[in-house]
């Protein structure tokens, strides 16, 4: 077990990095979800102009790697004169990026409701607003919750990329320990185990939600 001494010495540092990873992911998930819902609404209920704006946004985000966006935000932000701390800079990029994928999830949730739900709500004399608030949204959100959770796990994994532009979180913490101890195999494996614990927990939760969606409640 002597080979794993660097990992035993560095585990507390790694866990602090994991705390930062979770903080970053949590800070990005909230605005990503809000923007994702708005994009989905604009695409389903918006007029032609709103729809084409959303479609273009999704095309661009789906076609460009997150790493490219993060790297160029790092280079371009100082040029634009926006004075944003690096942490919030990457949170904004993560949120803008994942909002596109969240909107797909929410849109699928809205569109997969059977036609009868709309007809029933209309035949009860509900206004469009009531229809959305009372009938459509609660069901659509329930349908969207399992893929939403797996997107959150993806976001946690994606935060590892911010280490490339110099931010400190779990991946950066493990790289720092590797530079001191020259034990890349053990340390990166340790970091992988921590990521796994976070993401697998989310995956299991997603599966639980999926079971609930499939079997009523």
């Amino acid at each position, binding site marked *: 077990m002597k080979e794993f001494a660097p990992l035993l010495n560095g585990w507390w540092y790694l866990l602090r990095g994991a705390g930062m990873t979770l903080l970053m992911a949590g800070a990005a998930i909230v605005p990503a979800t809000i923007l994702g819902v708005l994009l989905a609404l604009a695409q389903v209920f918006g007029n032609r102009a709103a729809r084409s704006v959303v479609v273009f946004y999704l095309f*661009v985000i789906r076609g460009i*790697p997150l*790493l*490219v966006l993060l790297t160029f935000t790092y280079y371009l932000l100082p040029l634009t004169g926006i004075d944003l701390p690096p942490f919030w800079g990457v949170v904004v990029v993560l949120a803008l990026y994942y909002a596109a994928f969240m909107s797909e999830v929410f849109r699928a949730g809205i569109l997969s409701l059977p036609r009868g739900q709309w007809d029933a709500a209309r035949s009860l004399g509900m206004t469009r607003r009531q229809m959305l608030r009372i009938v459509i949204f609660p069901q659509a959100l329930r349908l969207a919750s399992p893929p939403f959770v797996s997107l959150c796990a993806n976001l946690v994994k994606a935060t590892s990329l911010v280490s490339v532009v110099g931010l400190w979180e779990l*991946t950066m913490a493990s790289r720092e320990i590797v530079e001191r101890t020259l034990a*890349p195999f053990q340390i*990166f494996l340790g970091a*992988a185990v921590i990521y*796994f614990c976070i*993401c697998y927990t989310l995956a299991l939760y997603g599966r639980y939600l999926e079971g609930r969606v499939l079997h009523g409640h």
Partner: protein
Amino acid sequence: MLFDPNFIARLIPALIEGAEVTVELAVLTFGICLVWGFIVALANSSHGPLAWIAGGYIQAVRNTPLLIQMYIVYFGFSMIGFGLSGFGSGLLALCIQNGGYMAEIYRGGLQSVSQRQYEAGRALGMRRLALYRIVIIPQVVARIIPPMTNQAISIIKDTSQVAAIAVMDVMKVAQVWVESSANTYDVFLGVAIIYLVLTSVATLIGRLFERRLAFAS
């Protein structure tokens, strides 16, 4: 200066050279994982210890970041006497991760064919081989094309992470050019357009296959 023609004339060949590496990595990864993912899916659907190993592999690679996997392969493997070049490490890590994702796509495709299709084939007196060749496989292929197209897009984007282990793909070339010049906007636009073109081509190829192999269902 923005849109300096002299600069752009020198930039474009460099970016295209990087894009060749990106395409090479993406095509190799996709091709290898089509086979590797299928093998993993077969192992996962068997019974006994092999299924456990395949299942553990799928969960392990899906729930850890690609970047960490690349670091383990690139830095870690050389420490235990199994050194690979940057390109080789990147390719191996990309295949390790996407093999897990593709195995899940195959599994989903196989599960989506209802049991009645097997029964119907058998009722017609088909042998196992004919049953799979004529009834099952065509339906599975038609159903996995959309998720496979998405996977191809995500592979193209994921290849950008090899820049972190010093492979000269389009991302790394862009980074070098940004750092050695002041034309950040030009480089960003160039690299964004290249990724958008590559992912759009993948989408179009996917659509083409989809149209040719679609069933009236």
